[in-house]
Structure formats: C-alpha cells, structure tokens
C-alpha cells in the first residue's frame, strides 16, 4: 500500500519536473539544459516576493510563475534562437545560461539552507492506511490538473493547436502561416512556466538550494529519454515507470541505488531504443 501511494506521489513529482523540459523539446527541438536553473530561480523569486515585497502567498506564487515564464522566453528570444537547430550548441549554450543563473543566485546571497517556501496546506491524512501529508496530496492534485489543462490547451486553444502543429511538422506549420519563431518563444514561456509550477508545489516540501537545480535537470532528462524525447504521453508514463522503480529500489534493494537506477535507465534506453519507450520511431535519425 505504501509502495502504491508513495509510488504515485514520486511519479507525479517526476512528471512535474519533466513536463516543461519535454514540452520545449517536443515543440522546438531545444534540449533546454537551463531547466533546472529555471526551477530554482522560481523558488527564489517566490521567496523574495513573500519576504521582501510582503506579497500575499498565492499572489506571490502566481506572479513568480509568470516572471519565470518571461525569463525563459527572454532567454530564448535573445540568445538561444540564434543557435536553433544545432543541438550541441543548444545544449552548451543553455547549460551555460543555467550555470550563470545558478551561480549568480549564489553570488547574490541565496546560499545556505534557510530559504523555504510555506506549504499550501498543513497537516496529514490517512489514505488506504498510509499516512500522507497534505502538501504531497496537493502535488498529485496539481500534477493531474496540469496534465489535464495541458491536454485541453493543446487540443482546443489556437496557440495550443499551433504548438502541436509545430511539434508534428514544422514546415507544414510554416506553410499554414504559423510563425515558428514566435511559437518557439511561446513554448519556452510555457516550459519555464511549468518548471516554475513544479518548483512552487515541490519546494515547500523542503528548502530552496541551488544544488537541487542539477538534480532536477538530471531527473527531467531521465524521464524524457525513457519516455521518448518530445513525447508528452511518453514522459508521463516514463515518470510513473521510474517513480515506481525508484520506490521499489528503496524498499527491496537499497536506497542509495536510487540515482544509479535513474541513470542506468537513461543509458539502457538510449542503447536499446533511443526513441524511448513511447516515442515515435525514427530509426535512421537515431542510429546506424
């Protein structure tokens, strides 16, 4: 029972971390290695809003999401757009930006272990005989709601449809009058927004520290690769797969193999089936 409940929580956590990354990659083909930095930066923005500007808690959360979205869009519009399509350059440039943001935060005094965000709701609850704190239930609720909204957005909204069109066939989308650069910026806004969302629901569980940015990035990459780069459904399913495998590792093997399992998943998936478990097969592009 515990395995089921905490497996779901862990999986949704991973899915939240990975959603923004996979969205951006799916739409504009950009492996956004600044993802972890955007995640952390949201935490610190929210913290500043609450503690420096004394804003209302919920307002601060929402504002920080928009600010992060704008930061992401600006990064893309000003810098990354120039190396579009060159995967290695994109990786290095976005990683460098992420590093600059993270180290800049540290220089700006955001170091140590005393930065925390308040939780949404206090307390804990018994589910199926397992004690769970309400914030973790919130995480699951938010995760499910976000996935649902994302589905609605990409199926019923003009911008969402345009994004999906770009993900499917960029040239055809261009011919139909969709401005691919604008859409890529929009995708980056959305991706950063999602990274921020993950941050505001997950960070209250612990504290905001710069180093976590790297872990979030690795977990996001793991989930996206196993699920198939750019495949949203794949990412969600892979999050559940890795999430449960991790919990099972803790229970039945030993907890310190958790990260080894995630990394091993990446390598094995890439070697056996680079398009991931649920990705579209593009045999010739991946391997010879």
């Amino acid at each position, binding site marked *: 029972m515990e395995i089921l409940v905490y497996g779901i929580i862990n999986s949704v956590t991973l899915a939240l971390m990975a959603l923004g990354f996979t969205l951006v990659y799916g739409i504009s083909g950009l492996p956004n290695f600044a993802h972890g930095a955007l995640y952390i930066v949201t935490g610190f923005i929210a913290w500043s809003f609450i503690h420096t500007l004394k804003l209302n808690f919920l307002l601060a959360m929402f504002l920080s999401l928009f600010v992060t979205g704008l930061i992401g869009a600006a990064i893309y519009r000003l810098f990354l757009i120039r190396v579009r399509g060159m995967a290695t350059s994109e990786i*290095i440039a976005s990683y460098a930006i992420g590093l600059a943001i993270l180290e800049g935060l540290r220089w700006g005094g955001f170091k140590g272990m005393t930065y925390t965000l308040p939780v949404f709701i206090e307390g804990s609850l018994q589910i199926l005989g397992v004690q769970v704190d309400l914030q973790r239930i919130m995480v699951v609720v938010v995760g499910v709601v976000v996935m649902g909204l994302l589905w609605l957005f990409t199926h019923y909204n003009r911008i969402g449809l345009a994004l999906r069109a770009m993900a499917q066939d960029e040239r055809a989308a261009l011919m139909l009058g969709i401005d691919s650069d604008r859409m890529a910026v929009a995708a980056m806004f959305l991706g950063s927004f999602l990274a921020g969302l993950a941050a505001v629901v997950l960070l209250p569980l612990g504290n905001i520290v710069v180093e976590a940015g790297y872990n979030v990035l690795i977990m996001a990459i793991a989930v996206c690769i196993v699920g198939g780069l750019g495949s949203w459904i794949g990412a969600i399913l892979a999050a559940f797969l890795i999430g449960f495998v991790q919990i099972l590792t803790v229970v039945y093997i030993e907890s310190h193999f958790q990260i080894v399992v995630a*990394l*091993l998943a990446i390598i094995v998936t890439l070697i056996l089936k680079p398009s991931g478990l649920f990705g579209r097969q593009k045999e*010739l592009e991946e391997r010879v």
Partner: protein
Amino acid sequence: MTLKGGDVRQERIDRGIKVRTGGIYAVSSWKEIGYLLIPRLVLIVGLLILPLAVTNLYWQRVISIVGIYALLSLSFDFLTHFVGLVSLGGAFYVGVGGYMAAILNTKLGLSPLFTIPMAALGGAAICTLFLLPCLPLRGVYFSIVTLMYPLITARIIEALNILGGTDGIVGVASFPNRWVEQYSLFGLLLLILFGLRRLVNKDIGLVFRGIKDNDQAVKASGINITHYKAAAVFISSGMGCLGGAYLVHIYMWSGISQLALDFSIIPIASTVIGGGGTLVGPVLGAFILVPISELLRAFGTLRIVFYSLILMAFIIFRSEGLMVYAQRKYHQFERWVKV
C-alpha cells in the same frame, strides 16, 4: 549591403602565396617556406618556451593544467569534427585514465614513466569497450548517453564504495620535477597534435570524415563503420586518459571528482572558442580559456557566472572560433565588389 555607389558584397580570395605553397613548389623560395613554417614554429617554440618564460610560481602550476585541458580539447575536437561523434563525457576518459594510473602506481608501485602510457592505452581500451554499445547512436542521442557515463560511474563508485569510495586514492607519486612534468606533457601534446593532423588526411581520416558527413554512404561502400568509430573512440579516449593520468600524478591523488562535469565542459568550451575542426584551435582555446578562468578567481563566486557568459557569448555570437577566423585572415584577403 548598400554603400555609397551602389550594392556591394564582400569577396574573399585566397592569397597568391597560399596557392603557391599548396604543392611541392613551396620550397622554391624562402618567403614561401616561411609562410608555411612560421605559424607552426610559433606554436612549437611558443609551447616549448612557455615553461621557461613563466616565472611566477603559481602560473607555472597553471600551465600544466592548461596542457591537460589542451589534450582533452584536442580529444573532443577530433571526435566531434572529424568523426561526427559529439561526446559530452570527456570526464569519463579522465576518470578512467586517472584511476588506472593511480591504481597502477599505488598498488603495483610503478613509476609515472610506466603508469602514464599504460593508463593511456589501457584506459582507452576500457573506454572503447564501454562505449561500444553506444556507437551506433547518432547525434544528440550519443551526446546524452556519453554525458551520463561519468555521472553513473561516480555514483557506482560511491554506492559500492570501491576504488577508495568518496575518500579517493591518495599518495600517488609525483613527477621528479616540473621540467619533466611540463616538457613531457607539452612534447606529447605537440606530437599528438601534429600526428592527428597527419592522420586525418590519410585514408583512415577520409573514412572518418565520410562517416561524419554521410555514414549511410560509407556503410553502403562495404566499410564497417562501427569498426572505424571504435578506432576513433580509442584514439580520442586515449588522449583523455593520458590527460587524466597526468592530472593524477601532478596532484598525487585520484577520486570521484575526476569524473566531474568540468572535465567535460571546459574542453568543449575551449574548442568552441578556439575553433572546431582545426585541431590547433582547441589547443589555443585551452591556452586562452583556462588562464582567463584563473584570472577570474579574484571574483570568487562570480567567476563561474562570467565564465559561462563568455562561453555562451562565443557560442552564440562567434561560433566559428578564433582559429578559423585567424586562418581566414592569414590565407585570404577580402575586398568589396560591386554587384
């Protein structure tokens, strides 16, 4: 572009002397021999004088490190721009070479004279073996899988508590003096640099480049490309392992941080700055980038911020790199012509 007097465009033309020195006729005059030799001599003499010219004790240490990063950058440039395998896992080679040298030295008591070549060759064999399953992968898939190799190796060493665990291996022998350390390193660097330049223009180099440009076509000509890719990985990882072995002996220590991301990132950065695909460029890039990073140390935490901004600016605004630019200026002249 429109200037006064109508539409113009820039035209680049090879210098006459470049054309003349292309063949055997280069030996016909001193001027032409000089044209060919001067850039090479500047590099060779420059590298050989450097340990003598640097008098500041601390900077003498830095140039050894620079030499190691130059090796790593060379390894990255070769694999990326001549074989088309973008490996983001340079740290894996450093780690394997480093651990190997450290174990050979501390357990078997071999001197650096033996451990370094053994670590370079043996380490290259190990790296090639481990990377063998990934060789069919292309593009970003190969990059990501190689990025994961050093991470998982570090985690496995940590989780299984092998090879010294998180304490690392200490007490590795050092070089007898800095002259041996630096001249052997720079000598090897030059040897590998010029050796690689020859190699890429031989038949095998042609196959390598063929694989990079169109692997299907190479495969269709009945050439086993995995075989060639493995050979290329062996050469490239050998350089990485060599660098790792040197590092271990310079600092008399080996540990999991030999697998740190910095060893993957900095060589890439120096290749970007120096100019990919030139082989000399990455070496120069390392000689520019690493000292800059040392100068930035005065800024403390801010150092990495500057550093990554420089890297990003180069990738985005000057992606050809310094060496490509310099070669163009050396070999060609530019003029504006009317359209």
